[in-house]
């Protein structure tokens, strides 16, 4: 078994259309093939291939030693990952659903996030914590939380949330290669959305990008809210308004440069996120943009977020979830007479 080294991705382009679930599966498989210190474990990731089939086939391909089921205990999984990372491994653990990661919270906050700092960089934690997150799938309680703010507020963690199969593939490869722990948030409702994936494409952690050009206002989105932002921009276009869309992709580190440039180019901004808004990632974005783009802003930064309530039951989730209309309503308030 060799120790991990950062290595460039294979140069040969390999484009294929696939779902995000398949893209994550592919990234796991490719990373395991490249580096035999990469291990995948969690609840039901082995024979079953995960409740979303994201780890399908990995045990068959790499054996029980590389991809395996654990006893049903999230703190146990996370704490075991810490010890494995101390001993040269790169664990990729799966938390079955967002809310089922909470039992592991203390291991995440007190150890995964802090071990590198505690040991002055002598013991890094190259751990990836995969969390299928968010709603929009008609899931019952505890299966639809957008829990990113807890992680983003915790120094020492990197946090990413892809919105496309391509980013899911490339960011997961980057996450697995990262010497620092990465909370990898997979938008459940986008698992089955298809897109083209070039497995040779590298996407570094920390790089937002403008995914739709526009001149009148900037929509800032990530993960689950990206398709909403795009749809809103399409709808606005019909009404003659040109909306720019930024997909953050990474929440930590946050890409101030890209976001600031985008907002300054339009002078108006709306942040879209599914999580409850209070003291959240979207608060941070709104606060930063308000501060850093102060003299460019024609209107206050608006937020379209989940309400500050527990995630809605299936039959009511459509009232909870940010949608195109709510985004357009927010855009309408952006002081267009200025």
């Amino acid at each position, binding site marked *: 078994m060799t120790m991990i080294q950062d290595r460039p991705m294979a140069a040969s382009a390999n484009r294929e259309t696939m779902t995000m679930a398949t893209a994550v599966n592919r990234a796991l498989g490719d990373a395991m093939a490249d580096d035999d210190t990469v291990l995948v474990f969690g609840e039901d990731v082995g024979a079953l291939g995960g409740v979303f089939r994201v780890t399908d086939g990995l045990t068959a391909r790499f054996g029980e030693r590389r991809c395996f089921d654990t006893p049903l205990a999230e703190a146990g999984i996370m704490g075991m990952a810490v010890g494995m990372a101390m001993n040269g491994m790169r664990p990729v653990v799966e938390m079955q659903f967002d809310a089922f990661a909470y039992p592991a919270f203390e291991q995440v906050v007190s150890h995964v996030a802090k071990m590198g700092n505690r040991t002055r960089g002598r013991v890094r934690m190259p751990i990836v914590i995969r969390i299928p997150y968010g709603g929009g799938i008609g899931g019952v309680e505890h299966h639809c939380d957008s829990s990113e703010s807890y992680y983003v507020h915790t120094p020492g963690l990197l946090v990413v949330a892809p919105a496309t199969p391509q980013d899911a593939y490339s960011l997961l490869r980057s996450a697995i290669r990262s010497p620092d722990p990465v909370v990898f948030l997979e938008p459940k409702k986008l698992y089955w959305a298809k897109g083209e994936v070039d497995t040779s494409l590298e996407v570094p952690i920390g790089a937002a990008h403008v995914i739709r050009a526009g001149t009148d206002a900037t929509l800032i989105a990530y993960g689950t809210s990206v398709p909403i932002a795009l749809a809103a921009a399409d709808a606005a276009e019909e009404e003659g308004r040109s909306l720019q869309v930024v997909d953050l992709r990474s929440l930590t580190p946050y890409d101030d440069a890209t976001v600031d440039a985008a907002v300054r180019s339009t002078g108006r901004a709306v942040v879209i996120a599914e999580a409850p808004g209070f003291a959240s990632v979207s608060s941070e974005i709104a606060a930063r943009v308000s501060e850093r783009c102060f003299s460019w802003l024609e209107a206050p930064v608006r937020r379209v977020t989940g309400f500050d309530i527990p995630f809605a039951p299936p039959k009511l989730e459509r009232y909870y979830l940010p949608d195109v*209309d709510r985004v357009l309503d927010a855009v309408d308030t952006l002081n267009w007479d200025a």
Partner: protein
Amino acid sequence: MTDFLPRDTPVQLVDTTGAFSADPVYPTPAPDALVDGYRSLVIGRRVNDQCNALVRQGRLAVYPSSHGQEACQVAAVRVLDADDWLFPTYRDTVAVMLKGVAPAEATLMLKGDWHGGYDPHVHNVAPQATPLATQLLHAVGFAHAAVLKGESTVVLAMCGDGATSEGDFHEALNFAAVFHLPVVFFVQNNGFAISVPLSRQTAAESLAHKAIGYGMPGERVDGNDLAALLSVLGAAVDRARSGGGPTLVEAHTYRMQAHTNADDDTRYRDGSEVRAWADRDPLLRLRTHLRREGLLTEESEASFTEAADSIAATLRDALNTDAQLDPDDLFRFVYATRTPQLEEQSALLDGELRRTGQEAQA
């Protein structure tokens, strides 16, 4: 203290052929209790069948069936007095109904209308817990409060084999033992936690062996033998009520169907294993025994079927009706009084609904 260890083999009173043998320690349940229990088994099986059908028809979002585990469901409730409390999991819908909760209320969460459908204080049933093992601690706190109030409530808390691996399981049993509380921990070991077999949850000889580590008695019982369950759980409830503290009871049973309708159990287990367990079915076995003893007549069987039919019909009716849901409920219960922020947010939603004319249809 080694008497805290469970037996080498699970307690059994009625074997798979329906033959009865008395136990040297555990009493034999009265014939009435068995007949009544059989009635509940018939109802429980029917509830499982009906709910599975309702899932297929799209009326329930999801249903974790207890098919094959009905004897556990029935016994968990039958050993309790009306004042006693049940702390069930998502898989224990049959037990919840048998404790008195109306079918429509018991399935409201699975229907997707709200996160829970019944008032816990009406029939003394805690909300069905989804986060594994967390409810065991609630049961402990509930029992602790009862003791402080001088009430003689016994609390029966259920969980699965997988849940025993969670830290909360450990903390709950330990708290119950340290505070010597009237709690019966009832583990339905059905062999699987979704796809993960028991061998991945424990290397111990049995889950009941954990009890001695907390200083409480542990026992194993055949989870498909209603008579044995009534007897073993009944003894644990008696001990709890008489100040003898908590007990851990592990029932050996089997999840005959997939984890939920969303699961595909062919990926992780052999059909032959499932078929082998069919021979140990809790209904068949008790029926054979009762008929052999002359305790079950054609008429009583017919009346049980009728009772089951009627509950199934109630379930169908309840689930085929679309409730009028009020979106403002989203804000109504988060706090006893809405915060100013929730006032603003509900006003926002309300405005949207008015503008789009949805408030009527909602």
